């Protein structure tokens, strides 16, 4: 039995896994202690729960427990990593390298650092969504202190070649931070094997609670140091002050443990559902374009443009399915997605894009319903589309002189 609305926006957030909620519950009521209370049982119980979660998170990413700093989420982790490194290593240099398709939590952090005297290089991406490694090599100078490149993109799901990027950074003695919010728990991410120095992750993108995340900070080869961005009681080895969100951290730990157990089966299942959706859409509809490479991509992501159909109008027609669009009309800024623009495909395709994010609880029945519904609405909207009509008449839309608007 289908339940509506169908949730296919798992890049925005994932539902809490009931097993995670169950693990968290005791830490709201009976075990409410402050993990920093060293002199009574309430504190000890809380601290023990936090340390267990730290191990669970560490195990998921191949780190040691001491390398995990709990935060309020990936936005804070990105801020702490980038600002913390920029400040700590300011004697060494003031140059940061990132990419045009990063999350705003990285881009806007870099913009703020520019105002504080840092120089930032924003690498473009190629049509497949990946950075050019040669451009990265050329961009590194003796003033470069940090490279921040995301693991898996939140819109188009493309996976940057982090091990190769890390190799380049190692060779040049530059730290590598990666925002792995979308990748951790979905695909194997190992900070040791991948040579990552700092890595951001979030609870609510992997069936854990909102309001909790972590930053991995390497302690050996090299030992990474950070300047704290939050002053206070010196929690989290002095890197992040603030009373620990014990239930949230317990939930993040449980979510990490579950992801570790389920990942292999789940990613195969997600890929199969994603490909089923893609194949159905592409079999029934012409002029459908996939944004970003399919070769290196998160298994649960599909980002697709239905040419000549505007994204928001498509969302309106499939309002019993929760997805998101890169269309300007769905954004607060009235600008189409900067990630899709960075691919260079043209703004018109950005306006026509839909992001599908498959999750732990997505069923084949839901995918089949979604495919049928999208196909139906796209066909209807194309009947309504002057652009589709013009193209069918043989008009080249790029040659039309559109009036200024």
């Amino acid at each position, binding site marked *: 039995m289908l339940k509506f609305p169908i949730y296919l926006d798992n890049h925005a957030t994932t539902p809490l896994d009931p097993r995670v909620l169950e693990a968290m519950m005791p830490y709201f009521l009976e075990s409410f202690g402050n993990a920093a209370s060293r002199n009574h049982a309430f504190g000890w119980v809380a601290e023990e729960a936090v340390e267990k979660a730290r191990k669970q998170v560490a195990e998921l990413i191949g780190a040691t427990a001491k390398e995990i700093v709990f935060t309020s989420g990936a936005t804070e982790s990105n801020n702490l990593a980038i600002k913390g490194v920029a400040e700590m290593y300011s004697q060494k240099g003031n140059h940061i390298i990132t990419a045009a398709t990063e999350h705003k939590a990285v881009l806007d952090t870099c913009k703020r650092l520019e105002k504080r005297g840092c120089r930032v290089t924003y690498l473009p991406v190629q049509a497949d969504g990946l950075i050019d490694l040669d451009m990265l090599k050329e961009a590194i100078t003796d003033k470069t202190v940090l490279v921040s490149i995301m693991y898996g993109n939140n819109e188009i799901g493309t996976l940057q070649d982090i091990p190769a990027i890390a190799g380049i950074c190692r060779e040049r003695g530059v730290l590598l931070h990666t925002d792995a919010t979308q990748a951790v728990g979905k695909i194997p991410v190992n900070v040791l094997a991948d040579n990552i120095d700092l890595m951001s992750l979030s609870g609510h993108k992997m069936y854990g609670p909102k309001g909790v995340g972590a930053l991995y900070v390497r302690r050996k080869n090299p030992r990474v140091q950070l300047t704290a961005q939050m002053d206070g009681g010196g929690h989290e080895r002095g890197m992040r002050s603030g009373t620990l969100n014990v239930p949230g951290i317990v939930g993040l730990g449980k979510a990490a443990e579950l992801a570790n157990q389920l990942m292999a089966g789940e990613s195969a299942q997600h890929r199969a559902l994603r490909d089923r959706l893609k194949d159905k859409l592409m079999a029934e509809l012409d002029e459908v374009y996939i944004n970003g490479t399919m070769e290196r991509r998160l298994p649960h992501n599909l980002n697709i443009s239905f040419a*000549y*159909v*505007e994204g*928001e*109008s498509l969302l*309106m*027609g499939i309002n019993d399915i929760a997805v998101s669009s890169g*269309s*300007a*009309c769905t954004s607060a800024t*009235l600008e*189409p997605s900067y990630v899709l623009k960075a691919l260079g495909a*043209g*703004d*018109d395709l950005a*306006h026509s894009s839909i992001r599908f994010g498959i999750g732990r609880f997505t069923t084949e029945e839901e995918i089949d319903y979604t495919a049928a519904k999208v196909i139906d609405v796209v066909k209807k909207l194309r*009947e*309504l*589309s*002057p*652009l*589709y*009509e013009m193209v069918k008449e043989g008009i080249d*839309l790029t040659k039309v002189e*559109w*009036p200024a*608007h």
Partner: protein
Amino acid sequence: MAYSDKVLDHYNHPRNVGSLDKQDPQVGTGLVGAPECGDVMKLQIKVNPATGIIEDAKFKTFGCGSAIASSSLATEMLKGRTVDEALAIKNTEIVNELSLPPVKIHCSVLAEDAIKAAISDYKTKNGVAAETAQTA
């Protein structure tokens, strides 16, 4: 964002979708907007040359739900009006009728532009045609 019932009604049951023969001298065609801006409206009117009354109007729109609704409503407003009455239609009438929020006002502006463009096309065609007729 929540859509008004009227926007939803026009989106789900768009009025007067289709195309008229561009070559027909009685037909005026307006094409406004641009694909990279996310909305393009094609609006056509068919005018009775004897009475100057718009007897038919058709549209096709690439754009958000509010853009579709604005152009759908525009075709309804046009039918039965004279060309000069049609020129007096203001985007604010569309905004009020559809209860468009501020971020969607540009959809109504585009619809007004489409009306004006269609009428201008009709006038250009027939202005030239009338003069040719006089000189012949």
